[in-house]
């Protein structure tokens, strides 16, 4: 494939999987005729019909529960959250039924469902449209949580998520849909449970995901010029965490900085740091630094919004500070 936009990569993944398996279908608000709020399902209804690209009424909890019932009885639904924040209304169906039902049913039913859509802080969208639900959902047993960050990984990961027999929460990011990248012409799948080492380095490990990966890489460019050599890891799998890849990096650098877009309290970083302390405490030369969003509803004002989330300069500073520590 030639230069492909992020949203086109996602669309291609859905298209290929619908082609590959007739039990795969898409449902959600405006996924059909309108083509999806970020055009991920554009025109797919023309190819697959209105049942396989099902425009639903605005009833998040109920259509999510419907997808659970369809999955229990052998279909493979892909739910599009028009904005992932709206899935707060589907919290019950996602937690109780998508997440826990396989266990409470003693293995009677599988729930092969993908719940995907735009998350994260966009450009002045206001607090309600700037949510990071991965933090809220991470405590639910039975869910896999994945965050994609490039057109390449978006496509390969979404295809794998659709083929996975577990419920997968699949986070895209509102500000990444127009990234462009050359994609392989041949079909490819990427593992859902593997972190991606984006930049090899030896000084410090930066653990990040989704849009913050790009902030971390901007910081790395600046740092390189001054002779710093950070390792940047995109977590990809937010649940379960790929502690193997993370551990290998910690053993190499002995210093960790977490960069995330969730709010500091109860975020992905909190769980990540607790896991690192559990497993690799002896490898650490310094306490982990956590760069997270402020614990506030995301403000509308552009300058305030910028102050709310982590900026590349803060990452640069944190790396300098950490490397300067004498051990």
């Amino acid at each position, binding site marked *: 494939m030639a230069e492909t936009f992020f949203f086109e990569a996602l669309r291609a993944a859905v298209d290929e999987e619908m082609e590959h398996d007739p039990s795969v279908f898409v449902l959600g608000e405006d996924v059909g005729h309108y083509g999806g709020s970020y055009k991920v399902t554009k025109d797919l209804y023309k190819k697959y019909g209105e049942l396989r690209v099902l425009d639903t009424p605005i009833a998040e909890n109920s259509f999510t*529960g419907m997808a659970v019932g369809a999955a229990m009885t052998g279909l493979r639904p892909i739910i599009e959250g028009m904005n992932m924040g709206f899935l707060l209304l589907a919290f019950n169906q996602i937690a109780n039924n998508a997440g826990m039902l396989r266990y409470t*049913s003693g293995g009677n039913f599988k729930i092969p469902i993908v719940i995907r859509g735009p998350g994260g802080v966009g450009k002045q969208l206001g607090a309600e449209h700037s949510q990071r639900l991965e933090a809220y959902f991470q405590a639910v047993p039975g869910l896999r949580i994945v965050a994609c960050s490039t057109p390449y990984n978006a496509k390969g990961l979404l295809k794998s998520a659709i083929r996975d027999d577990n419920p997968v929460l699949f986070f895209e990011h509102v500000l990444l849909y127009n990234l462009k990248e050359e994609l392989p012409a041949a079909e490819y799948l990427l593992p859902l449970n593997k972190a991606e080492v984006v930049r090899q380095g030896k000084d410090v490990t930066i653990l990040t995901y989704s849009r913050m990966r790009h902030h971390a890489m901007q910081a790395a460019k600046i740092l390189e010029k001054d002779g710093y050599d950070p390792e940047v890891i995109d977590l990809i799998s937010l649940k379960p965490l790929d502690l193997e890849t993370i551990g290998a990096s910690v053993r190499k650098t002995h210093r960790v900085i977490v960069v995330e877009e969730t709010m500091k309290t109860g975020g992905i970083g909190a769980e990540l740091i607790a896991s690192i302390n559990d497993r690799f405490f002896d490898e650490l030369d310094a306490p982990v630094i956590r760069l997270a969003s402020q614990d506030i509803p995301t403000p509308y004002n552009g300058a305030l919004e910028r102050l709310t989330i982590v900026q590349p300069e803060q990452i640069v500073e944190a790396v300098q500070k950490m490397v300067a520590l004498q051990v």
Partner: protein
Amino acid sequence: MVQERILPGFQAAQVQITKAEGLCLYEDMVLGRFFEDKCAEMYYLGKMFGFVHLYNGQEAVSTGVIQAMRPGEDYVCSTYRDHVHALSAGVPAKEVMAELFGKATGCSKGRGGSMHMFSAEHRLLGGYAFVAEGIPVATGAAFQTKYRREALGDETADQVTACFFGDGAANNGQFFECLNMAALWKLPIIYVVENNKWAIGMAHERATSQPEIYKKASVFGMAGVEVDGMDVLAVRAAATEAVERARSGEGPTLIEALTYRFRGHSLADPDTLRAKAEKELWFARDPIKKFAAYLIEQNLADQEELKAIERKIQAVIDEAVKVAESSPEPDPSELHRFVFAEDE
């Protein structure tokens, strides 16, 4: 006490049932009643724990609806008051009892408990502990049938889903949202509201602006019927019509069955709120006694035949308890089993 709803008089004479059908309905209701009575006994003996919601009094609804369906092919979806729906759907009593005992041989492998009975084999989509959350799941199963038929071209896909829930659930958004979608897409589903007049301690009339729940179907352009939920033949007749409608692709039906629970909300409820006069009025309408009288009056069975059924069912229940008692506990090394799809 509010005025009792005048129940539509059902002309039992209009339905022709054979002796075999009659005995089958009777047996299923007795199974439900005896099973629940045994649960109460076992609960007070400390054999089962948690919230246990019994179905006594409502048997005609489970039996009347599920016996009008195709066992093992059609889908059944329940609530936390799910033991008897599971039994009517064909889940063996010993598997339901073992689940209540928390044993590895339970239908949910001891992971679910009273409010989470599941059986893929019997197409029991489950017991759902949160009020109304089963309604979307059942709607999804019905969507699946339509999808198989229309998107996958599978002409054998004509299964019907029965979705049971209470009067309290009918005030929840999921009820309205799903009625809308089911009517919109003409899904093969029957929504069965078991209006037992109470949602724990909340009297139905105090919770809803329109107590006649079946009328709520009309705004969705859906068929809605009220039926005497203490009369198994009335329920079966309404269900049969709804099943035909669903199977032939003409869409969903809302059935409101007027019924009553003969015990407290759960075994933890002392049931002191409901008026004695109200309870007595409904006890006098016991669906099992009523149907026994009908069978005898119609010369479809004699006392001895009914007694024989009761003895047979008592043996099934005793055996279920024996199996539940003697079954192994789940293996502690399998604590994490079934969290993910990879665990078979």
